[in-house]
């Protein structure tokens, strides 16, 4: 085999320079700035900046609303990940079994994935507005649903709004995963076992584990970071701040309240949380998965 090599060092750096520049400017520079903001006190315009040690962190963590937002975010992540994954899987298995009009089902189920979170929120608004909302009136008839007043009803509202879009994403990946499973394995399993339910849990699902693991990570990051627009267009934290996620709170404090120190500290706390979750997943879950 012929060795491909650049004649000078300059050429290779020339080719990777654009990539490096993008990473440095859009990834590392903001991280450095976030750290700088988190450890300084400054006004909104950047005047009067001085080093303040851990003051901003103490300020954030001593705020009872921050703890409320932290608890809600953890519940939010667990619920969204669980429901959107399981419904996505269910739909994928069903769509995979369909013989007639397969592509029509697939296309229709994929559509919501293309919708931006803020638009999802606005759409959900129509369903949950007191005046127009079909779902509002349906739930209201069942148990007096009122998300303006009741914390759990507000939870239901944002959970439905945030998982809806993600179901499509999960559906696509699960469907792709199902199609990579070799026909011969499935056929062999049909001969061995009559119950399709048992076949699924003993053969298909274990073979889908790499996809599932990937999707769990994707869903956690989605519900952690991308749902800002949904919260902002649905409950805005209603009834009284209980449905604010950590990202939403950082956004409100940083961009509405213009307190960059507090927002910077919150970003670093979030970074640590995500770090812990990710390390946990790779250490304790990934080892149990077989990649073929």
């Amino acid at each position, binding site marked *: 085999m012929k060795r491909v090599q650049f004649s000078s060092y300059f050429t290779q750096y020339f080719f990777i320079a654009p990539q490096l520049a993008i990473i440095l400017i859009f990834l590392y520079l903001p991280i450095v700035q976030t750290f700088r903001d988190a450890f300084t006190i400054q006004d909104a315009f950047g005047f009067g900046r001085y080093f303040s040690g851990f003051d901003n962190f103490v300020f954030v963590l001593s705020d009872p609303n921050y703890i409320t937002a932290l608890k809600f975010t953890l519940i939010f992540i667990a619920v969204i990940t669980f429901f959107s994954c399981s419904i996505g899987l269910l739909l994928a298995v069903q769509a995979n079994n369909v013989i007639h009009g397969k592509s029509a089902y697939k296309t229709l189920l994929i559509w919501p994935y293309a919708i931006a979170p803020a638009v999802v929120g606005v759409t959900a608004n129509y369903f949950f507005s*007191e005046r127009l909302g079909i779902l509002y009136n349906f739930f209201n008839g069942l148990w007096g649903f009122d998300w303006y*007043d009741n914390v759990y009803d507000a939870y239901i509202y944002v959970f439905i709004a945030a998982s809806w879009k993600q179901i499509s994403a999960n559906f696509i990946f699960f469907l792709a995963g199902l199609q990579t499973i070799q026909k011969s394995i499935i056929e062999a399993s049909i001969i061995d076992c009559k119950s399709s339910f048992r076949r699924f849990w003993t053969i298909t699902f274990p073979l889908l584990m790499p996809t599932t693991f990937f999707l769990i990570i994707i869903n956690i990051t989605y519900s952690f970071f991308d749902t800002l627009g949904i919260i902002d267009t649905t409950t*805005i934290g*209603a009834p009284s*701040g209980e449905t604010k996620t950590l990202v939403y709170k950082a956004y409100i404090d940083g961009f509405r*309240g213009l307190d960059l120190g507090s927002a910077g500290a919150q970003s670093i706390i979030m970074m640590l949380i995500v770090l812990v979750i990710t390390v946990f997943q790779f250490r304790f879950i990934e080892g149990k998965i077989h990649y073929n």
Partner: protein
Amino acid sequence: MKRLYRAFIALITVAFLSTPTISAPVELHYWHGHTGKLEAIINEIADRWNASQDESVLIPTSKGSYEDILAAFIAAYRANEHPHMVQVYDAGAAIMVAQVKNGVVYPFEDMAEKYGVDFNKDDYIPGIRNFYADSDGKMIGIPFNSSTCLMYANMDILEAAGVDIPKTYEEFEQIAPKILAAGYTPLLQSHSPWIWTENFFSRHNLLMTDGNNGYDDVPTTTLFADTPEFITHWTKVKEWKEKGWYDYKGRAWGDNQAPFIAGEAAFWLGSAASFSGMKGVVPNFTVNHIPYWSSITGGKEYPTFIGGAANWILSGKSDAEYEALMKLAEFMTSPEQQLFYHNMSGYAAVTYSATDLANEIGFYEASPYHKAVGEQLSLTGSTIPGGYRAGNWPQIREVLYENYPKMLNGEISIEEGMKRMDEGASKLLAQFAKTL
């Protein structure tokens, strides 16, 4: 393909060479927080200005809500891409006034003097003048869209229930059962921090924070739990909600306004500027002063704080641009433009010369809707300052938003809620004080 490419290059070259060299008029960029009908009114004002002279061109840009615009322009300022003039709302006044010393904001009064603009301080309605002024009374912002909270009443419902418009909350309590019995919601309001907090204090001549509402000293705490009148008010509000006299539809402005627009609620407390959106949509409504507790004021009526926003002149532009900008400011505050804006939007006229003009042409007889806002803001007799200078106020409003629903649904007592709001506000005020 090659020929096409050459033609393209030639075209670009020609385009560059033929760029006109005559001096263009000065461009004035103005960022504002109006959308919908109100944005159309701003564009109309810009068209009028651009047609009236050829030295400068006003380019207004809507940046979304008041909260969005503040963040957008601060980011732009830090990147040195800011406009000449920006509209910043009441809750941001403390931030803007504090930036005069850093040279971000140029005081209107100084600029008017420097560029020889026709400017008479005494012509501005005092409540409006003082709200956007520093503690010495020097005008910093240019008063522009001044609103205040008002009470909208659906006259058809009042007739059906056989009641009159209440002046006080005591009167409201008398008639609320009749409205409820007639099958309507008696009362809604759209902004608890603004209407039933800040303007509760102004309407009843009570101090909201220490340091004389922040005009004398940097405030360290709000006085919610220390004001028995305020606790009484919210205790009453909670009672009203339980009786069905008042309905709370979450914190979104529009959700609370919707029942009034749909003709299901008798009264709605909102902004003077809500008028433009409701004109022609809601049949037979009137605009009235906001009620007060006569038991607190002893029957006297005090003015409310100004709401809405002011225009602020930003630093870092050329002399020629500022000269043009000040001429624009003169135009925008002229009685004719004020009256146009007043009429179209429902915002108050900010100068006496504009209200004089309105009286002269019989404007208020033709459109009585517009009377309440000016009247309420021109009331006299207050011993408290005409505003509040408290930093981090947008976040303090968040604290209020989070505690009121808990107080109303009984999760915490009114007293406990007041205490929590004071604590939350104190922490945010202390955080802001560190940046001064």
